């Protein structure tokens, strides 16, 4: 008992859209939240890649693969939406409806992939790439939950965003969004949306808050 360490508790302030340590009230660094998000994505990538390989090798039946993918993706969608929303308590009906909608759209795609594997119509590389896309679809939940909740601190300030390239191959769309530099928050598409790479996208956002009167000197730059 003496060696147990209490796990940190957190709060969330909707006015700022940020997490804080419950003890001390310091804001949680954005990179820590990013690590949580990407940690979930990486864990899913590893788990579902192994599952896909065993399915491809015939050790897991198609119906079992589809069922396990469904379970894992649903949880991932919800977790990432919750990370973006500020926690489980902050998930709204709209957030949940978005999860239901996106996963309902993905269900026939996963079933179609299973059928393609059964028919021998795709290679293991294509299977793994598709699994990666499904995971990327879950990743968009984070951005769609978070972005509407971002707030500027005062009426004379302006929140800017820019796309940054992730550690993966980049499509022309993502390179173009990166090239647009700083833009008013809410302007640029979320990673995984409106891009050829789709769910394979692993780009991210950076944010900065500047006095509104200075915003023009930031727009279009990558300063």
């Amino acid at each position, binding site marked *: 008992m003496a060696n147990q360490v209490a*796990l*940190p*508790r*957190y*709060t*969330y*302030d*909707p*006015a*700022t859209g*940020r*997490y*804080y340590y*419950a003890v001390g*009230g310091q*804001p*949680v660094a954005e990179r820590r*939240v990013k*690590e*949580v998000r990407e*940690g*979930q994505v990486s864990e899913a990538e590893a*788990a579902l890649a*192994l*599952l896909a390989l*065993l399915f491809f090798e*015939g*050790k*897991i*039946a*198609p*119906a*079992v693969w*589809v*069922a*396990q993918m*469904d*379970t894992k993706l*649903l*949880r991932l969608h*919800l*977790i990432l939406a*919750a*990370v973006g929303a*500020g*926690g*489980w*308590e*902050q*998930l709204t009906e709209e957030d*949940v409806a978005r*999860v*239901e909608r996106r996963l*309902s759209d993905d*269900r*026939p795609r996963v*079933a179609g992939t*299973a*059928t393609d594997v*059964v028919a021998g119509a795709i290679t293991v590389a294509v299977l793994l790439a598709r699994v990666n896309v499904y995971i990327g679809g879950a990743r968009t939940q984070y951005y769609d939950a978070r972005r509407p909740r971002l707030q500027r601190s005062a009426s004379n300030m302006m929140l800017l965003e820019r796309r940054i390239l992730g550690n993966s191959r980049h499509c022309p769309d993502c390179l173009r969004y990166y090239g647009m530099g700083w833009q008013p928050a809410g302007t640029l598409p979320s990673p995984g949306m409106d891009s050829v790479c789709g769910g394979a996208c692993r780009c991210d956002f950076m944010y900065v808050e500047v006095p509104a009167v200075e915003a023009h000197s930031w727009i279009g730059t990558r300063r």
Partner: protein
Amino acid sequence: MTTDEIIAWAEAQVQALMEAEVDGFDAEATVKRAAADLPDDGEVLTFVPEWGAVEVTEAVIDDARAEFYLSAPPKMKRLLDATVVPNG
């Protein structure tokens, strides 16, 4: 497939999922769900289920919470339990 064959198949699938590092409880639930929709001919090698719209229930959210607790780094495990407090 006979009932005994389906049972044997299900057990083998649970084992295969656990070898894929799926939690035992999840593995059994997954195989049970897959088996529930097997057609009468029991063609387990080719059958692909087609399910309708997703519904998120409280039980589903609880499962996602449990998954997060298991997978998040220790210091971040309680992040998603954040309570809303205006930080001023």
